[in-house]
């Protein structure tokens, strides 16, 4: 198990190197380049262009540029934002925290509602409720998160005016935790829908299998109440499946959060990437993409290891 974990962890190094190469290349692939973006109208002056190019180190060879950038990035120095004129790292890490909060909120929705829906549909198998819920999960799992987000904004923020759609500024703002939670409800729900649907479907099919096991009938014959038959006996044997599928959803929710942030103005990494693209702030964008990719890879590794810890047979599979 440990040696497998080490092997699996070592395997993410090439992935991360690949990610860094692609991210680095972004800067040189996009039309216009950073110099024009920084200088704007002044880009017609060749002297200014030469000065900025030297300042950014763009006059050196590509491998040299990559090496310098990577060394600094590993040390937490991602350069200075061309838009906000502050070190990118001071922008990045608070945003990362915001994105992780949104991811965690989405996970809570996906797990709680997914489990509840999966268990309930299994109990009322083939009923109207079951059919309707399965249809909705199919639609939910197929819909893009930003579209669902827009629908939610329209319904709950604009028509009903129950919840705010925008206005989340900082985790340590004046409203405190309650204010953050209020702002979290809609975006986290929008982001959770696909994972919620996936978890509900997996739990439902596992429950259907587990509910007809002899030990559940025996529990009934021994006079145990229905909820014990369902939760203590059936669901206990669905738990490994549920944990596995949930682990796989974490990375997915993190990625989805980036899109949802743009719709809800959630000040996280996704919104940062979006606004830095708009402002042609390549340095910030590059750093944000690198961090997002790294977190994604690490989260998936963690989910994978957790699943293996639960089922040692996976090691040899």
């Amino acid at each position, binding site marked *: 198990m440990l040696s497998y974990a080490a092997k699996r962890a070592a395997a993410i190094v090439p992935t991360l190197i690949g990610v860094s190469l692609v991210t680095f290349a972004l800067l040189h692939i996009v039309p216009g380049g950073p110099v024009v973006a920084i200088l704007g109208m002044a880009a017609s002056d060749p002297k200014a262009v030469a000065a900025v190019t030297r300042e950014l180190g763009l006059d050196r060879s590509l491998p040299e540029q990559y090496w310098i950038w990577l060394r600094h990035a590993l040390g937490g120095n991602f350069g200075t934002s061309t838009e906000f004129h502050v070190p990118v790292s001071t922008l990045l890490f608070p945003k990362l925290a915001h994105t992780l909060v949104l991811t965690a909120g989405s996970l809570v929705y996906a797990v709680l509602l997914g489990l509840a829906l999966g268990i309930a549909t299994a109990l009322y198998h083939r009923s109207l409720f079951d059919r309707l819920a399965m249809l909705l999960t199919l639609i939910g799992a197929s819909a893009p998160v930003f579209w669902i987000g827009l629908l939610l904004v329209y319904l709950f923020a604009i028509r009903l005016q129950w919840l705010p759609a925008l206005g989340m500024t900082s985790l340590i703002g004046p409203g405190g935790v309650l204010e953050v939670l209020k702002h979290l409800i809609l975006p986290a729900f929008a982001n959770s829908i696909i994972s919620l649907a996936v978890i509900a479907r997996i739990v439902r099919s596992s429950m259907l299998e587990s509910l007809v096991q002899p030990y559940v009938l*025996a529990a009934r014959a*021994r*006079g145990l*109440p229905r909820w014990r038959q369902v939760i203590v006996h059936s669901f206990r044997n669905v738990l490994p499946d549920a944990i596995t599928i949930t682990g796989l959803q974490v990375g997915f929710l993190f990625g989805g959060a980036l899109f949802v942030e743009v719709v809800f103005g959630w000040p996280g990494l996704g919104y940062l990437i979006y606004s830095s693209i708009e402002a042609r702030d390549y340095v910030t964008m590059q750093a944000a993409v690198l961090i997002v990719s790294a977190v994604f890879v690490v989260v998936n590794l963690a989910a994978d290891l957790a699943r293996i810890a639960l089922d040692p047979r996976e090691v040899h599979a």
Partner: protein
Amino acid sequence: MPPPLRSRAASQPEAPLLEVVNLTVRFGSPVGEVHAVEGVSISVGAGETVGIIGESGSGKTVACMSMTWLLPSPPARYLSGRITFKGEELRRNDEAQLRKVRGSGVGMIFQNARLSFNPAYRLGRQIEEVLRVQLGRSARAMLPEMVQTLRYCNIAEPEAVLGKFPHEVSGGVAQRVSIALALLSRPDLLIADEPTTALDLLSQIEVLSLLARLRDESGLSLVLVSHDLGVVRRIADRVIIMYAGRVVEEGPASAIFAAPRHPYTQGLLASALQQGDGERLYEVPGTPPDLASLPPGCSFRPRCPFAFDRCVTMPELAPAGATHQARCHLLERATEHA
């Protein structure tokens, strides 16, 4: 073969402990409706041991499970039936009442005891759960009684077994643990559905003697379901033979085994008794019926060596002696000829 064990209470004239009247259970299936149990009536007296015999698909298991309305509906469809336990009618939708009867009134043990325990929990924990829910007593308070009862059920090291998972014990041990669990709830009736079928020969004998001892020492009523005549013969006071969802013969064990009246029972006895005498084994000809498309008339007709014109109508269960009944047109013909 060990000598037959007979209960001290051979027949009880008073009101039965459990009475099933005209039970009909069907199941929907892709090939048509399966007629699992058709108009079955069974009564079990206090202290009585009733053996129910039939091949797979005869409805014996469904009939037994229905004694406490145990099978979930759907898929089971209960078309008719009235069940009384200790003089009180069991209402099918009254979960609160049924929960009290299940376990503490009517205990049940299953064919595969290991599968009747949850693979995720230790045996001790599963026993505690049942006792806590039923008797409201803590595990610590129950421990001496648990150990004592397991020992009574021939479990040599009760404490060790309580700490094991179901897959860590043999089928025979699991079955004896499940019997112990049923006993701890102090039921009036124990239903044993093929309790020895999944076991090796030694475990079979052990479990069977345990059941016989129980019946003799505790005054417990017992319903023993089996396809094995030898098992039923050893401990049953009264025997019910089922075929294709119906009771085809019923009577005192002595009468059934000495003078079976239904051709199916005769065939079963012939196939059981001839074993080991070197001659070709006798078996009931043909295959068990398809419960989704039963022939009209007597269900046994296609396999019956004595079938005649009258068998295209379903015979009624008719007296074949003082306490003996059979469902066969041959009975009428016998009285007509007499």
